[in-house]
């Protein structure tokens, strides 16, 4: 059991296995398919009435209802009481049924074994899988300490594994959504305003008169409530200014499309700040009352004129002035959107901070049409004993680096898994919940190397994925439609709590995460951290603290609570910000203290060499990363991605619309074949593709080798020295014909 594989081979999930063959432990009976009485107990309802849920297809977590027809799964609709969806799900949420019906799902626990010199998965019982994991975890704890196990997590069920890991003695818990996505944004706003932007974002787009999108492709990123508000604002005549090398959906709704040269956004932001200060268009009263460091800012951006920015950004000076004036004209109902996926070039905290500063000059933070103050429900936690104090954490591997990282870096843990002479904190075990690290972490070659150094790799997922192929143990989770989860407590204009209850019994031999974590805790002697008998008791306890109950929530799905705070600052209100100076820091004292630029400063980034194009990537509204690219309903509307190529570039390379091409990056790494979308909608110096395609696991029958995987081409990154984010838009690609040497 404790034997370690010298070299982990990628194992394709066995297709033949169905849950039925490996059932059989008494403890699991309550969840076995086919046991009707337990099923009714699980569902709480024996009729075709709808079951409340909140969506797990993306992080927006819209609340809705799952409907059955003649006892069979039918459709999912939004809950009108839910502010995240306003009763209208996005295509992914509507297509959530496909996650349940997907025949390629993981079906039973799997354990890596060696058979005739070849590594394969064998189907296992839950008991065997848990024993294997518990033995390894005990061994790692004894030999290297519990801190050497890390958890990577994305999604609701991860919370139980967080509890498990903390109880075990490690706080190395990371989500790729930080260092690979919105980390720089949260830190930039924290540094400036003393608060992050949060998720869902506190953007008051619905009431905005002027919306500035800089690298934010709302409408293609289908962040439901936000897209709804954007559309409403457009219909109400809001001025939209979109900065994007690509004519995005949002750009097509905009009064101004600024097709900026990629990697120069910070120069444009500084030029806007320059115009707003030089032309005295800023909110003088707001700046005087609430901000710190205006004079330093004015001095710092003195030279960042539109004429200075023009050759850098290719945006004409009169357009920079005109758009800056437009912003000021509508202020404070102007919002410079903070973005979400912001890990681009390694100076991302600084770039996002420039946008935050611009918002402060316009006086839009805390104002109608700008940013509102979020309200969140206070729901009592189920009491658990105090967690042990870990003796070390991931940061020890990076002395004096990333001083302002407030959350653990997935990429950092990955790096620290590869032993070096200097490092004393090499990780030995990974528990990976709901995140396909091979596609979420950049530099997949590093991820693979790290994996080869592990004593234990556990993957908990719904679908076979690139990461599950490298796991020692695969634990198949049931979909969100088949399980309870913790309550959704989203911030918003008013506090809400939403319930997810199981609409269907778990298919195959799959289980909810809470049950897995609790069972593992029992085997590790950590049962006191999961003191509740079952999830219903846990949920009911929490719900009672807000004057509700599990019974009530099953009927209403979403509970709205009163907002005790104002959404916006009152006129002339005194307000102390949670920053070192108590003010909005245009000049960041914290950044200065750590030796970083206290005011953002533009530095040029490397440009693609001749014949190469910057690799840009983004989202499609019907897919969530690689999570949905095998969903039968969603692959039906988009089954593969395309590479967007400017017609002039296509002509140069002899590429025609619909041709399959192969991309090769600066390090000679090649992509799977991908169809060319020759379009005027992109600049000549960049190419674009939607992330999440080009899957390499054969058992994903609808997505296997459909399109290309951008992550595969992201073999280098630029680290954000402030917080460790991995800038990923620093890779360049050229074209190769299929089969060309």
């Amino acid at each position, binding site marked *: 059991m404790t034997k370690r594989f010298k070299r982990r081979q990628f194992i394709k999930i066995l297709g033949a296995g169905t849950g039925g063959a490996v059932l059989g432990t008494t403890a699991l009976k309550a969840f076995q398919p086919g046991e009707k009485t337990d099923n009714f107990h699980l569902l709480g309802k024996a009729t075709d009435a709808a079951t409340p849920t909140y969506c797990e297809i993306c992080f927006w977590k819209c609340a809705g209802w799952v409907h059955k027809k003649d006892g069979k799964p*039918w*459709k*999912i*609709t*939004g809950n009108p009481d839910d502010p995240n*969806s306003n009763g*209208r*799900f*996005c*295509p992914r949420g*509507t*297509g959530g*049924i496909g996650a349940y019906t997907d025949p390629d799902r993981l079906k039973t626990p799997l354990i890596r074994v060696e058979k005739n010199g070849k590594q394969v998965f064998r189907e296992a019982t839950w008991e065997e899988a848990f024993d294997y994991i518990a033995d390894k975890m005990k061994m790692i704890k004894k030999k290297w300490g519990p801190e050497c196990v890390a958890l990577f997590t994305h999604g609701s069920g991860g919370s139980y594994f967080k509890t498990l890991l903390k109880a075990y003695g490690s706080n190395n818990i990371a989500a790729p959504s930080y260092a690979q996505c919105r980390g720089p944004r949260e830190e930039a706003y924290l540094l400036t305003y003393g608060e992050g932007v949060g998720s869902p974002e506190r953007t008051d787009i619905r009431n905005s008169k002027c919306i500035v999108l800089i690298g934010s492709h*709302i*409408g*293609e990123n*289908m962040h*439901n409530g936000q*897209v*709804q508000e954007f*559309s*409403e604002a*457009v*219909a109400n005549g809001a001025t939209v200014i979109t900065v994007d090398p690509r*004519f995005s*959906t949002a750009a*097509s*709704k905009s009064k101004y*499309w600024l*097709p900026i040269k990629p990697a120069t956004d910070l120069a444009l932001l500084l030029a806007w700040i320059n115009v707003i200060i030089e032309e005295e268009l800023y909110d003088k009263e707001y700046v005087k009352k609430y901000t710190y460091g205006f004079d330093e800012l004015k001095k710092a951006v003195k030279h960042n004129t539109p004429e200075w920015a023009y050759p850098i950004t290719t945006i004409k000076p009169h357009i920079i002035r005109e758009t800056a004036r437009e912003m000021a004209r509508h202020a404070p109902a102007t919002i410079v959107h903070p973005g979400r996926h912001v890990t681009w070039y390694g100076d991302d905290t600084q770039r996002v901070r420039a946008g935050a500063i611009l918002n402060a000059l316009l006086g839009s933070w805390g104002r109608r049409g700008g940013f509102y103050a979020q309200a969140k429900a206070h729901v009592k936690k189920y009491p658990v004993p105090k967690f042990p104090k870990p003796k070390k954490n991931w940061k020890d591997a990076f002395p004096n680096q990333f001083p302002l990282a407030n959350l653990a870096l997935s990429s950092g843990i990955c790096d620290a898994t590869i032993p070096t002479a200097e490092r004393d904190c090499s990780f030995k075990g990974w528990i990976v919940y709901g995140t396909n690290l091979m596609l979420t972490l950049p530099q997949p070659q590093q991820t693979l190397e790290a994996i080869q150094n592990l004593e234990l790799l556990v993957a908990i997922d719904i679908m076979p994925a690139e990461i599950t192929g490298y796991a020692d143990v695969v634990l198949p989770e049931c979909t969100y439609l088949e399980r309870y989860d913790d309550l959704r407590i989203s911030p918003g204009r008013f506090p809400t709590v939403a319930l997810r209850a199981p609409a269907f019994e778990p298919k195959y031999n799959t289980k909810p995460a809470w049950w897995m974590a609790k069972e593992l805790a029992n085997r590790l002697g950590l049962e006191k951290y999961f003191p509740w008998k079952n999830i219903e008791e846990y949920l009911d306890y929490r719900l009672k603290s807000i004057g509700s109950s599990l019974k009530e929530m099953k009927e209403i799905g979403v509970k709205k609570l009163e907002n005790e705070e104002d959404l916006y600052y009152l006129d002339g209100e005194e307000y102390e910000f949670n920053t070192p100076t108590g003010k909005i820091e245009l000049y960041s004292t914290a950044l200065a203290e750590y030796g970083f630029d206290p005011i953002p400063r533009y530095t040029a980034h490397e440009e693609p060499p001749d014949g190469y194009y910057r690799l840009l990537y983004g989202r499609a*509204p*019907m897919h969530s990363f690689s999570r949905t690219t095998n969903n*039968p*309903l*969603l692959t*039906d*509307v*988009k089954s593969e991605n395309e590479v967007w190529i*400017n017609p002039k570039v296509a002509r140069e390379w002899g590429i025609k619309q619909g041709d399959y091409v192969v991309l090769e990056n600066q390090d000679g790494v090649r992509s799977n074949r991908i169809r060319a979308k020759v*379009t*005027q*909608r992109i*600049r000549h110096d960049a190419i674009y593709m939607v992330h999440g395609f080009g899957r390499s696991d054969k058992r994903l029958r609808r997505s296997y080798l459909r399109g290309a995987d951008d992550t595969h081409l992201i073999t280098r990154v630029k680290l954000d020295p402030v917080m460790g984010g991995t800038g990923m838009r620093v890779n360049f690609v050229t074209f190769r014909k299929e089969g060309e040497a």
Partner: protein
Amino acid sequence: MSRYAMAIDTKRCVGCTDCVVACQTENDVPVGYCRDWIVEATSGVYPELQLEIRSERCNHCSDAPCVRCCPTSASHYAEGGIVMVDHDDCIGCKACIASCPYDARYVHPEGYVDKCTFCIHRVKEGENPACVSVCPTHAMIFGDLDDKNSEISKVLQTRKHKTLIPEAGTKPNVFYLL
């Protein structure tokens, strides 16, 4: 009398395909088929570009060639002018598919011709079609053109709009707000 129609706001629509997925689940449309779909039409040359995004489907034409050419009268007008196909009467000859200028029909794996029904089963219950009720951007309006006070009548009076392939002379009842 009523005359049911749909208006789709190209300014609001972001082309997310939610209408397509909602139709598929609501109406059990088999995987691989669809009754509605998204068209993205780009015009202009970089950087002067326009993009029109449209959710398209059967236009429930007032002068529908599919109804005229159907040899068994399976294609017919139901209440409110909704063009329907009676699955039992359909012999799968595909004359209607050939006659439809909008390519709105397909042969269901069970042998009959299928297409958008404006969710007549929901409309009868006083509800909107599934695509309209799910649309996150509120880009679709469904209603009765014979009711001058309906939202759709009003919006068509005030907003510039068009129909698709008007030269086919089929008098479509799906309108695109520009």
